């Protein structure tokens, strides 16, 4: 995990999530940004992939749809950064088709798995380590 630009903004972090080995996500580091609101840890940080990231549970804006990152759902102040990044890494290869956030990846994941895998591998190449 690296902190940001020269001025060291403690509320905005960037980090890389390595894809798990032996999955279609392997051999790549996916960049994320974490922005911590002023009332963190009462409110969860906003975690984003780059815009247009291909994953069923990532919004077109790149925002990640994960219950532990949702204030109304499972976020509690006791969730630490380690749990967040591990959660995201876990989410990469085990998407939740019940809460889709973007259409292309979700549709492909459900109906056209080979196309889905092809797209993911392309993306992995793009972010290859």
């Amino acid at each position: 995990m690296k902190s940001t630009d020269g001025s060291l903004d403690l509320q905005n972090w960037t980090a890389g999530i390595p894809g798990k080995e032996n999955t279609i996500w392997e051999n790549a580091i996916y960049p994320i940004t974490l922005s911590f609101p002023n009332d963190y840890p009462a409110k969860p940080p906003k975690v984003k992939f780059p815009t247009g990231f291909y994953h069923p549970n990532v919004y077109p804006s790149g925002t990640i749809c994960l219950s532990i990152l949702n204030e109304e759902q499972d976020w509690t102040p006791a969730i630490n950064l380690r749990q967040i990044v591990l959660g995201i890494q876990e989410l990469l290869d085990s998407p939740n088709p019940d809460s889709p956030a973007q259409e292309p990846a979700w549709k492909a994941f459900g109906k056209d798995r080979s196309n889905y895998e092809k797209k993911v591998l392309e993306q992995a190449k793009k972010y290859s380590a």
Partner: protein
Amino acid sequence: MKGLLKSTFTKKKKKQDNKYFDASDRMDMLTMTEDGGWKDLGHGGHNESSKITSLEPQIENQNEESKIDKDEELDVEGGSDFEFESDVEFGDEEIDDELFEEEYRNVSDNSEQVFVQQESPILKVDDGTKVKTSLLFKSHTTKDLVKQMSQQCRNLGDILQLDEGDVINLLQYYSWNSDRLIEAYVDNPQAVKKKVGLASSTKVCQHKNKKTYKNNSFECFLCCENRKYTYSLSCKHEYCIDCYKRYIDDRLNTGKVITCPECDLSLTTQDIDAISGEGESIKLLESSIKEYVERHIMYKWCPSPDCGIIVEVSNLADIPHLLEKNEIPIVLCDHGHQFCASCLYENHSPATCAVAKKWVDKCKDDSETIKWILTNTQQCPKCRTSIEKNGGCNHMTCKKCRQEFCWICLGEWYRHGTSFYNCSRYEEKDKNVKQVGKKKKIDADETRESLKRYLHYYNLFSVHEVSTKLDAKRCAQVEEHVRLLQETSGISWIEAQFLVESANTLLNARRVLKWSYALIYYCNITRYLDIYESIQDDLATAVEGLSKLFEIEDPEEIVRAKLDFLNKSRFLADRQNAMLSCTKDLIETGTLPTKL
């Protein structure tokens, strides 16, 4: 449980009867109530202590009631019912009651016997217009309801042998559906407890929740600072008391069970009180009220903005019968707002519930759109699609049917030949073009006629809605006027009441007028409608007449205009009653179709 409810049923009815005889009686009673400690009014607005003059019997009556109310669980002596009846003076209401009872005898076959025996209450609203209702109801403030909820929790706690705090959590989890909770709990108590996150059944595990560290030696995991005072549940997840308090504050008004930040163990009311201070846990119940009211259909929120009164309707089963007879189940909240217990809109008489519902739905989705369409578009002469002009040229081509036409005369474009734009001339040489265009235009107009009709009534409706708000503003100043009158003209409080009464008459009549436009929209055009519309015109004139009087600012002039006020509001009330009473004819003559 059921048997108990029935035994208190009669008493409750009596209470209702007493409550709504007459506006003045009612006000006195409310004040009495405060004296007798019978019911916490909670909100202001009934500060009429100067009004109580005599009415000894009612005071006694009220005290007796308060007594009964306190030991509601006990049996009441058989005689008390009769005492109520003999004590209360019905006055001229008696005739109405009889009439009313006769009217309702037919319906009450399947309702309980008590219902037939008791006098149907007649709401007498402040403006002197009578609103009939056979609903039995009672207003609650949110405070009352919280008390009731906590009572329910205690009762349930006795049944399930649990703490009140635990029961609150369980009920929150089960959305205040106590039947479902009992069913699930009896089936498998341990599973339910685990699901909700209650501490395990071995209740006392002597865990010390509050701890104090010397030299601030505790490092809180949440704020990463060294702290002195901490709190933890039996799961031993420990946080500084400030973080815990913030955490609870964040979640207290969600109405959901609050758990330990790290695991599923839930905080009970005792924990919340211990962390956030005594009495904080009441917020937990308050935040659940919404869910509670939604779950229990006998409770209805008063739809008036910021009113916050919850009306409990005890004979819900009668509402369908009323609706069948095209009557409106009106209830009155303690702040004097009338509303329909079925639609949950304001009192929408003379419009029936079906009309009101259809009208509101219609207004919700199309009014503004239709207005825009009518002013900004024309219909394609061929396929009748609404077309908005997006450029200056009058040579239009319909996107849908490719029809080419002239925007000005709506005639086919090619008929213009080479003499384009001649159609704008007043005397048209090429009569053929004009006639074709005219005919098309008439067709298009016909299809738009219904839209225009709707818009006509919608405009009237919304104009009166706006006026009602403005009138309400003006009438709100009436209190101030009354005070001024007392100071400057030296007239007594009771003499200045005409102003308050007129204000109420005005507001009610305007509401009736407003909804009558919605009603007429759905009517077929018959000769009865003509009569109805002329009555409506009368009402509108009367409304404006009285409304104008309220523009007088000068107190002395108001006093001089007193007779005018009285006459006009009397006239208005008469007109309003006339309107309401002939609404029935509309239905009977089939002017208002039974199927909308």
